[in-house]
């Protein structure tokens, strides 16, 4: 590459081989996705030769009732799971940060288990659990999504707790005491001082929970039934049986949704927030 200034010894990123390596990695990561998105506009049943630009597969996808239903279901689950995970996760974080109590180590350890245990085991556990307790299977929408939502909340809220806890660690306790010193009650101090401090982590946690839920396949696969189809499960069956650009179109929609969400969060956090958060 053409350098205007000599490369300092520690400026590894400016070295050619480093840039090539990163470039190739990025290519590796993004090429499949980009090709997929491009071919969603391909006017051909098969996915390999470019025949012409068309939007007809988007039309097909949006008109595919079961696909749309699956999409709506997934979004609903993600939305509900996010809200509840946020509350439970934030409460868990505050509980661990603020209080000493018997068996605290045990509780803390148990709370990180849903993250560690392999998804397949969690999926199996929920399948067995809901079968054993005879969870009702003919509830109206959206209650029929309750089993899946409960499963999602269970593996999402520890992540939220982790994110919020990290932020709580940097809280200056004297601020809370100052609020109380000025007359605030326990609740007022929490609302006026602690909550604003953890707000960024709540946003990050919500985003994390939403993505984890929307993204999940295995656990959803095990907890959904014939009348509670979710998006990943639907796409899975489409991929297994009939691969058409419709799948590409549906996937592209989801990708765009994810990217949009990410950028909204970025706008809110500031781009710096990403590197700071680590």
């Amino acid at each position, binding site marked *: 590459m053409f350098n205007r200034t000599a490369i300092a*010894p*520690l*400026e*590894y*990123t400016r070295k050619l081989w*480093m*840039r090539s390596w*990163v470039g190739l990695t*990025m290519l*590796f*990561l*993004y090429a499949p996705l980009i090709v*997929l998105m491009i*071919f969603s506009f391909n006017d051909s049943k*098969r*996915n*390999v030769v470019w025949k012409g630009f068309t939007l007809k597969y988007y039309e097909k996808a949006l008109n595919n009732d079961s696909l749309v239903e699956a999409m709506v279901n997934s979004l609903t689950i993600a939305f509900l799971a996010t809200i509840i995970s946020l*509350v*439970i996760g934030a*409460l868990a974080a505050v509980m661990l940060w*603020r*209080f*000493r*109590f018997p068996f605290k180590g045990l509780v803390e350890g*148990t709370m990180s*288990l849903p993250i*560690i*245990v*392999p*998804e*397949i*085991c969690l999926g*199996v*556990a*929920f399948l*067995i*659990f809901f079968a054993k307790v005879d969870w009702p299977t003919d509830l109206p929408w959206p209650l029929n999504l309750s089993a899946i939502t*409960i*499963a999602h909340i*269970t593996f999402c*809220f520890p992540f939220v707790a982790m994110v919020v806890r990290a932020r709580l660690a940097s809280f200056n306790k004297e601020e809370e005491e100052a609020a109380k010193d000025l007359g605030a009650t*326990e609740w007022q101090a929490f609302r006026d001082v602690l909550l604003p401090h953890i707000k960024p982590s709540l946003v990050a946690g919500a985003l994390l929970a939403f*993505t984890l839920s929307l*993204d999940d*396949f*295995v656990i959803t696969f095990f907890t959904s039934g014939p009348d509670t189809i979710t*998006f*990943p499960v639907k796409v*899975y069956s489409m*991929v*297994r049986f009939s691969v058409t650009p419709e799948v590409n179109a549906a*996937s592209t929609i*989801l*990708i765009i949704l*994810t*990217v949009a969400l*990410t950028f909204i969060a970025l706008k809110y956090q500031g*781009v710096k927030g*990403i590197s700071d958060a*680590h």
Partner: protein
Amino acid sequence: MQDWKSQKKPFAAIATAPVFWLALFFIAPMTIVWLYSFGQNAGPADIDISGTLDNYKRATEWLYLSIFLKSLAVAALTTLICLIIGFPVAMAITFAAPKWRPWLLLGIMLPFWTNLLIRTYALMALMGTNGYMNKGLGELWDGASWLRTLVGMQPLDAWTPVQLLYNNFAVVLGLVYVHLPFMVLPLYSALDRLDKSLIEASLDLGAGHFKTFMKVVVPLAAPGIVAGVMITLIPALGAYLTPDLMGGTDSQMIANVIERQFKRANDWPFGAALSFLLIYAMFILIALQSMRANKVKEAR
């Protein structure tokens, strides 16, 4: 930190929901699975928890043990490849100019945020017999062939598309594709915390870049490496979707076997036993890692 007894009401208000949820929707299901692993099928819909160890015995037969070991091997290979690819990327992000850093991080993380299924499917589309990868390889082949004619040698035989999918190669590639971002993040975290003046000191004392890398950077980034390895190895070990979609009949991993017990074979107790064996394997891995971490602490 306050003692819970000094503020019983706030504590109750805060602690009830998480603890209750954990107990009801995590501990209870896991306990039932554990109990089932000691049971057997007693009729089309009933499971009799008889305290039998048959399921565990069956799980240790060579048929299943070999799949276990193979899964471990595949996961280890995936982790190794992710580490090799990911470390320079993490270094590049660490040493990039501050204004580019968040964008590079975003670039690496964005694929992670797209649906696993979509990512796998996208990769598969490229790897099919008519996919772009095969096309690309075909071009390279033809190019090599043409070069040979230039030199006066016989051209190569016509290119036949290589079977890239539905085999172990595909599974490993797929797993690497999915887990790479996971590896980069802890590596970046550890490298970021590294005191850069240590690298400068090493260079100042005469060591070349590679030596510095091996003797200074890697040892100090070790905790990050271990974290990255754990974050990649454990999920890879329990992977279901990638081997299911991209693997062939002999590329089954342990998660696929477990799934079969529930969706097809209807042998829930056996599936429960397999699940718990997988969990125990994970715990052993984690225990090994924390033992190693404690040894390092003692050595200091």
